[in-house]
């Protein structure tokens, strides 16, 4: 059958005025991320800490059934905001988040740059804001699964396992802390990885940058600490700043002897800088070819 015989027919439907025009970008981003074999394997592994901490909450309410538990373990199983802080800000958990943004965030914009697809997006009735929201929401989706959702589940399960509202009445602000810190850490990793993704067409290079800058900041911090012996040098470490702000949000003593405000300002500065990079690097057309 020739093309002419098949013929062209007009579409008689109506366009939707979508409240969330960025949603298809998010949906396809999630779908494409799950298509990666390695991610399919690593993502379920990232839920293991949540399972471990949830088990801890269960055990804390049934200590009499676990008589072999002693000393430090019992102390660890004191369920209070510190327990939540430990889950959210431990180095291993931040490392898992980093790995997730490497897998799902590194290619989000760099692939569009590599395959010239930005012009396909922006020839649609989309604004830059929609494009960024759609891409950011992909990372937010995966990070919320290991931050916000487990955090709220821990809180609810603590109430369920204890069979009373005592925990809630003691720490009524804790759900807000979970939501607040989840937003900060997710927002940070999203903008951090997206801005780096907009810098190169090579997703592997972006992955190296995401990983390298995070750990380099930590190495620089360790070098400076041994040299200057000041807590202020912790401000150069991305990990330390996230932990510092996290400790404050969960009402715990901050790990470094400086005001959490400084760390918050550093993170805010990174937010602003990443936003600036994204705005300047993502254009509908490459002007100079």
């Amino acid at each position: 059958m020739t093309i002419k015989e098949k013929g062209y027919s007009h579409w008689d439907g109506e366009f939707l005025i979508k409240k969330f025009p960025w949603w298809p970008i998010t949906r396809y981003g999630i779908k494409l991320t799950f298509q990666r074999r390695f991610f399919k394997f690593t993502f379920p592994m990232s839920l293991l800490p949540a399972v471990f901490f949830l088990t801890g909450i269960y055990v804390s309410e049934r200590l009499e059934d676990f008589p072999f538990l002693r000393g430090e373990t019992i102390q660890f199983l004191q369920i209070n905001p510190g327990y939540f802080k430990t889950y959210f800000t431990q180095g291993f958990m931040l490392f898992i988040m980093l790995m997730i943004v490497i897998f799902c965030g590194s290619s989000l914009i760099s692939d569009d740059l590599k395959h010239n697809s930005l012009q396909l997006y922006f020839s649609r009735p989309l604004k830059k804001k929609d494009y960024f929201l759609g891409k950011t929401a992909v990372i937010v989706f995966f990070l919320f699964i290991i931050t916000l959702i487990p955090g709220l589940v821990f809180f609810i399960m603590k109430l369920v396992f204890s069979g009373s509202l005592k925990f809630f009445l003691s720490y009524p602000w804790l759900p807000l802390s979970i939501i607040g810190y989840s937003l900060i850490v997710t927002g940070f990793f999203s903008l951090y990885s997206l801005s780096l993704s907009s810098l190169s067409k090579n997703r592997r290079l972006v992955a190296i940058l995401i990983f390298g800058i995070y750990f380099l900041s930590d190495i620089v911090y360790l070098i400076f600490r041994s040299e200057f012996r000041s807590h202020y040098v912790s401000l150069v470490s991305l990990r330390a700043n996230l932990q510092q702000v996290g400790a404050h949000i969960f009402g715990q003593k901050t790990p470094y002897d400086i005001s959490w405000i400084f760390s918050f300002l550093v993170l805010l500065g990174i937010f602003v800088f990443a936003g600036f990079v994204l705005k300047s690097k993502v254009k509908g057309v490459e002007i100079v070819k």
Partner: protein
Amino acid sequence: MSIEIKDIHFSYGKVKALEGVSLDLPQGAVGLLGPNGAGKSTLIRILLGFLSPDKGGGRVLGYNIKDEQPKIRRYVGYMPEDDCFIPGLDAVSFTSYLGELSGMPRQEAMKRAHEVLYYVGLEESRYRNLETYSSGMKQRLKFAQAFVHDPKLIFLDEPTSGLDPNGRSEILELIMDISSKKDIQVLISSHILPDIELTCKYVVILNKGKLAAQGNISELKEIRDLYEMKIKGEVGGFLRKLKAMKCKVEETEEGIFKVYWPPDQDRQEIFRVAAEEKIQLRHFVKSETSLEDLFAEVVGVD
């Protein structure tokens, strides 16, 4: 009129890309011609709202190009010149995805994606990963995504580049089909002049950022009469005198002289000058001006 622009100026830094371009385009297929750097792609990008003009303004499908870009893009399709796709998707997902981004409901975008992929001849390979597509298939796919949302106006940037002769003629057939029978206006930017001549009745020629000519191709061709002649004798003085009469002369590889003669002048002058210069005119024929001749004449290149 679906495209009306007035006095458009645009610069990339100090480089002026468009200077005072005004257009008022009719329905049907319109060719956009010009040498490299003439401002064709810049003009399309301004019409799509990718770039905002420094000066001037206009309307596309009745929407202002400066502040109603999202509305324009909902009803306009765009086929970019460069290879562009989204890795990891097959053709159906890719096309329906872009339909959804245009505002189509999800189910309808999927249904429509199948239809347009059939239309461009990709039905057999619509479930194949795009990374395995040949350049010709990618070209068809770009064409399909441009009208998945059934636009009223389509911008095609070099639609036949990278296609084999068969693929090229099929794409040209599709362009003629949608522009002549389906009431979709098409603006084609291309370097391949025979493609424009085949598909368009109206043409816009840009040169160095300025409008060099616009109008019906048949009317524009009448700017000059074209005569072909074979000459014997010392041609130098003869050609100089013809050029002095605002006439353009070109010599082909076969030794035929093509003379573009202003239609308001009497062609008997050619014979008079030939007699004066003692030249023998051994062959003298009125010829049809092609779009290539017109382009060379207007732009000033061969």
